[in-house]
């Protein structure tokens, strides 16, 4: 069975306040890094999956992303196949 590697990036929707990102942005100033205009924190989820073919692998990964890894009320996600 072919094995697929994928990365799912989960981000807060642009309209949702990210207080942790804001706190990191203000820490950037204390570090002495100037000019950071915006900093928003998301998640990267690396997945390895066995599936008969790539389209089936994508179908499963999309279901996984939409139904578990991200909450569509507050988050967006993107899927990247790493070895296709």
């Amino acid at each position, binding site marked *: 069975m072919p094995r697929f590697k994928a990365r799912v990036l989960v981000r807060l929707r642009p309209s*949702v*306040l*990210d*207080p942790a990102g804001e*706190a990191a942005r203000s820490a950037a100033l204390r570090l002495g890094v100037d000019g950071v205009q915006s900093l928003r924190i998301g998640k990267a989820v690396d997945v390895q999956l066995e599936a008969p073919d790539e389209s089936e692998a994508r179908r499963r990964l999309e279901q996984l992303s939409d139904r*578990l*890894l991200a*909450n569509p*009320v*507050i988050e967006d996600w993107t899927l990247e196949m790493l070895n296709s």
Partner: protein
Amino acid sequence: MSIGVVVFPGSNCDRDVRWAAEGCLGMATRCLWHEETDLSGLDAVVLPGGFSYGDYLRCGAIARFAPVLQSLLDFADNGGRVLGICNGFQVLTELGLLPGALTRNRDLHFICEDTVLQVASARSPWLRAYGAKAYLNLPIAHGEGRFQCSGDTLKQLQDDDAIALRYQNNPNGSIDDIAGITNSAGNVLGLMPHPERACDPVTGGLDGRELLQALLN
């Protein structure tokens, strides 16, 4: 007449709920381990506060798949009363029994304090005993209690008269000061404050009593 109290790995307010409901208010309770599926004989189910499944991924995201919650969907659909407190509220939104999501508090702090709430709607049985516009003093204890939803969802909540409780001094940045909501039918309530911690005179106020009594009345 009996109340089920769901216990997830990581729940930590399940015993508080039992003490309040059974010890203080004399209502029979039964613990429901998350793997149970039999809700027969129960009149109401409480999802207590805590950190179900360690709150991994997102608060309530893993708990949503617990076998007991698949039974709870039918239970709620048939009009059974479901109360989600704090982490239980987060679980109800992830499960889809209530709309919206609970996100990181605006100022990042875990907030543990008494807070003043106003009854926004006495339409549902949960808050009828207090009456509309009444003030309650209940403790909150959460890091992720900022209620968020889309503009359309907020309008739907307002149209359905489903906003149950509002903060007087919004501590976490929740949209429209929302501290608790019901479903449109009114049998499911989720709220961030802890009514079970305001039932015993030994530990403070008693403003949570009528809310818990509504589990059976």
